[in-house]
């Protein structure tokens, strides 16, 4: 593997060998930061018109650009920030940090046209959503939710009503790599999937990659959702607090050492359990809550070295406690939660090479506890499962000249799985149980990619990733080539194409498919192969400067193999039958299969101005085939969605009033519906087949073909209004929003019921959320 890496590295060196030129070249490098807070900014465009050369700041705000000795004009542009123009005499290597200011509505935007250009970017199938937009979009119960906003993007679908699970280009929720400061978040849902872990408070950027994956990403088939936490203001203390219908939250950020070190803490907690407590009887208390907390601190040692430490911690708990007169008590609870921690070191090696070293910890646990006590008799049950990761990640960004930008590095992760831990202790019986299963695995990925400006019009990102997984002596090594090309047709119009191969070594076993905490992550084994996919995409991107619009049209085709299906009647909850001596392995309950997804996506997006938002449309098909399901025949996936439309609009009516609305429409889920019933007779050799006896029949239903019935289309309108009021201390915001404005009864599921007279059977539906108004109040200083 090392030799392969060396070959690739040598290849890139050859590619990037500087042509011998008479003219001396110099490098400008440094960081781009927000003025005041000194928050580093990723994706800021640094452009030199004279040489038609540009670059953009990396995830840590670092940039480097090398040009011939000259007096040049450098433009610095970023969406939502005041553009800057600098005149620089380039007669030596220069270290220069740019500080840009947040754009205030009233300011006239000059030459903002060269900011983020979708047509220029070689990377396709990637969408970033400004955090401010996430905070403006109306949400269920007023709880702002990053994943719910991601669901509004073309190519991304939600599962069922209210669920925060995301389905990207036909892939399941298990095929998304959700990263928070490089740490994997294994279960991103609160409240059984109705809310996600991320409300945007602590986040700086959110980016979704749904295809054409650069080589630096690996480990999942369908998407990468990369979220980066804010660092915290380095100049003064700022805070925000909010009260909503179901939770309260706060954010506090500020300097630890002015201009050197800063921190950020954000937290929220639901309080319905506290509110209902006084109304519950002493004998029976139940409740539910979740909380989460983000924290980050950073320290700038000098221009060359920066340190960051960040973490997330959150938990959900549902509980029920009873106390009866006869000295009988019982406690039951279900808890689940994630914890992540990332420690990073940014280092600048000279002015062309940047490195980031990360130590990452990620943990997900789920536990069910049950305790019963009467007098001295006691029964205790504990069931738990989880996954814990320790990773080392090393990334290098190297900008040798204006034609090449090379990224390379590796990620090595030690996964510690606890598929089930089961403890029973009881005074009733001596048969106490204490079983705990563990699996230890290693996952590695090494990558190199070069963003190469081949001609003035043609740019490519050619990369290669080699992934490796080891479990109990079984090793898998898989090459993953990645190619992305962009050809400029005009200054604001380009065509793009990409190809990517992906491997996924971790599988999610879900008993229900709705993203419950009991869903279980398990590794690839010698029996269960890694999931694999290849995806090709092609598209057109256009920037429409006068209208501040970005338009993209893309088509994609994705084929996945060795994806996991669950055999009919399979259950992965060991707790269903803990005393079963015959331990049925999960490996025997899954069946490998294939999936085909293809379709087209249209997006028109406006990120700044009085009116912002987007319109997205997706036309797609997703089919699956499993040898052990549906008798081996192909079928449409439940979340196969022919048409999907989302409209998101945020309008700054006045300086102090913001209006927002979203409308979504999606073809109904493909489900299996019973249409008839009959007696199915088995062959019963014991009772004779000669006709004397009628074999005992099974009474079954006729479902026709699998997933052959479409649920009613899903559509919904949400509306919100925010009133901002500036005081000398800060800003107050009052928000009122309405979910499902026209009270559409979207079916959550169907069942067979009876008509009112009870004589005829009818198809009935259960809908979850009617029109739901909510209010919230926020104070910011």
């Amino acid at each position, binding site marked *: 593997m090392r030799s392969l890496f060396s070959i690739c590295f040598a290849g890139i060196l050859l590619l990037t060998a500087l042509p011998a030129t008479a003219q001396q070249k110099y490098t400008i490098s440094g960081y781009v930061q927000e003025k005041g807070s000194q928050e580093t900014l990723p994706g800021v465009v640094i452009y030199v018109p004279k040489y038609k050369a540009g670059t953009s700041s990396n995830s840590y705000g670092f940039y480097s650009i090398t040009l011939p000795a000259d007096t040049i004009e450098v433009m610095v542009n970023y969406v939502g920030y005041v553009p800057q123009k600098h005149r620089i005499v380039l007669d030596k290597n220069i270290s220069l940090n740019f500080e840009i200011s947040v754009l205030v509505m009233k300011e006239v935007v000059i030459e903002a046209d060269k900011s983020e250009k979708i047509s220029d970017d070689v990377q396709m199938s990637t969408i970033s959503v400004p955090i401010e937009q996430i905070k403006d979009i109306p949400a269920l119960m007023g709880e702002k939710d990053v994943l719910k906003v991601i669901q509004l993007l073309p190519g991304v679908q939600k599962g069922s009503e209210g669920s925060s699970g995301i389905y990207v280009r036909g892939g399941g929720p298990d095929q998304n790599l959700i990263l928070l400061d490089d740490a994997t978040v294994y279960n991103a849902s609160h409240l059984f999937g109705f809310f996600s872990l991320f409300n945007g408070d602590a986040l700086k950027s959110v980016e979704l990659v749904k295809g054409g994956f650069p080589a630096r990403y690996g480990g999942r088939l369908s998407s990468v959702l990369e979220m980066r936490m804010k660092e915290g203001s380095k100049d003064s203390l700022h805070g925000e607090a909010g009260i909503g219908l179901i939770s309260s939250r706060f954010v506090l950020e500020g300097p630890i050492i002015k201009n050197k070190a800063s921190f950020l803490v954000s937290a929220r907690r639901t309080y319905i359990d506290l509110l209902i407590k006084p109304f519950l009887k002493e004998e029976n208390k139940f409740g539910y809550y979740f909380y989460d907390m983000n924290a980050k601190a950073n320290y700038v040692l000098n221009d060359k070295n920066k340190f960051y430490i960040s973490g997330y911690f959150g938990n959900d708990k549902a509980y029920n406690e009873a106390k009866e007169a006869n000295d009988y008590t019982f406690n039951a609870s279900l808890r689940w939660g994630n914890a992540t921690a990332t420690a990073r070191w940014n280092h600048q090696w000279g002015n062309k090479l940047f490195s980031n070293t990360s130590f990452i910890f990620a943990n997900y646990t789920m536990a069910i506890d049950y305790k019963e006590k009467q007098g001295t008799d006691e029964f205790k049950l504990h069931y738990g499962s989880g996954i814990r990761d320790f990773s080392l990640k090393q990334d290098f960004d190297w900008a040798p000249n204006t034609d090449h930008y090379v990224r390379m590095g590796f990620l090595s992760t030690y996964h510690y799985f606890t598929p089930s831990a089961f403890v029973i202790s009881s005074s009733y019986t001596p048969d106490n149980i204490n079983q705990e299963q563990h699996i230890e695995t290693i996952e590695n990925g090494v990558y190199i990619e070069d963003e190469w400006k081949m001609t003035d019009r043609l740019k490519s990102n050619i990369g290669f990733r080699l992934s490796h997984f080891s479990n109990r002596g079984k090793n898998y090594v898989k090459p993953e080539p990645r190619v992305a090309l962009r050809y400029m047709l005009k200054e604001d119009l380009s065509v793009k194409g990409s190809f990517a191969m992906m491997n996924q070594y971790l599988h999610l076993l879900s008993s229900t498919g709705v993203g419950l905490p009991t869903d279980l992550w398990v590794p690839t084994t010698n029996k269960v192969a890694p999931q694999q996919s290849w995806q090709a995409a092609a598209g057109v991107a256009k920037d429409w400067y006068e209208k501040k619009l970005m338009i993209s049209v893309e088509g994609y085709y994705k084929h996945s193999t060795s994806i996991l299906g669950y055999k009919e009647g399979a259950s992965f909850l060991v707790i269903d039958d803990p005393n079963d001596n015959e331990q049925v392995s999960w490996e025997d309950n899954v069946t490998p299969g294939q999936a085909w997804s293809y379709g087209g996506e249209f997006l028109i997006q406006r990120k700044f101005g009085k009116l912002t938002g987007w319109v997205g449309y997706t036309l797609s098909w997703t089919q699956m085939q499993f040898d052990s399901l549906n008798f081996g025949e192909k079928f449409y996936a439940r979340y196969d969605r022919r048409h999907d439309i989302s409209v998101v609009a945020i309008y700054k009516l006045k300086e102090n009033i913001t209006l927002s609305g979203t409308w979504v429409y999606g073809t109904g889920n493909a489900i299996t519906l019973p249409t008839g019933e009959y007696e*199915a007779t088995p062959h019963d050799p014991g009772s004779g087949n000669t006709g004397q006896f009628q074999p005992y029949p099974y009474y079954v239903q006729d479902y026709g073909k699998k997933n052959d019935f479409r649920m009613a289309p899903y559509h919904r309108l949400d509306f919100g209004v925010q009133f901002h009021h500036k005081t000398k201390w800060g800003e107050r915001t009052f928000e009122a929003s309405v979910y499902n404005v026209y009270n559409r009864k979207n079916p959550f599921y169907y069942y067979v019921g009876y008509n009112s007279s009870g004589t005829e059977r009818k198809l009935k539906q259960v809908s979850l959320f009617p029109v739901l108004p909510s209010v919230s109040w926020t104070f910011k200083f």
Partner: protein
Amino acid sequence: MKTIHNILLAAAAIFGLTSCESDATVDVPETKPKLVVSSFISPQDTQVVVRVKRSKPIFQSYNVNTSASVANASVSITNGSTTMQLNYNSTGEYYGVSATLFPITAGTTYTLTVTTPEGETATAKTTVPGVAPAAMNVSYTYVVEDSNSFFVSRHYTITINWNDFSGQSDLYRVVPVQLVKSVINPTDTFQLRAGEFLISDANNDGGTIQDKIDFYNHIAQGSDTIVGFDFYLMRSSPEYYLYHESLLNYNSGDPFSEPSLIYTNITGGLGVFGSYQQLKKRVFL
């Protein structure tokens, strides 16, 4: 599983997320009653038996008794060269023809056609597998797990194996049947099914196929006793195997899991037309 549903619904209720039940707004598929045909043919059987019933649509009103046999159908079977009409036996409620008139042979493809005066037609094909394994080995042990003056509980562990045929994929179904001696009439021995299992030779082609059956017998002291077992080993056609597998796995689903489908190879109807080669072994305890 149930507990999780309850927790989910409880959580929704706690948050006042009022759910609402109403009539579905989509049109349900227009469905008519379908012919339900079941027939399993074998060279070891004394006759070809075909049962014909009807399915009842769920959302449309049709007066159908799903248990009643369709007596006025025309049922024929052909091996490609000979076609035989089957006669209705009103006592056994099936269509049949004797094996002496129409023998079933290994490797032959048979086509079954059922038509009715109402204009329904159902057809299906099956190819009879090669010979059944020549022998199977059966061994058993049992322990008395509990015994008192009223009851006795026995746990039988039965191991069964046979040699697979190499070079092809084979499917098997095993049905053990208890032979029970009646207390009331000691000369009478009746038969009771004791489960079944399905196994294929995937990953074990040409090897020894083995499986273990755990069987629990809990009876009152002095009542009927198990005197032995009949083991039926069916080397099955794919239709026979898939149909029985789907019956074993059948679940009608719930809002959070997918229902499983019952296999059918009947064009124009439901049910199955399958074939098998059978080996029977009787073991006395």
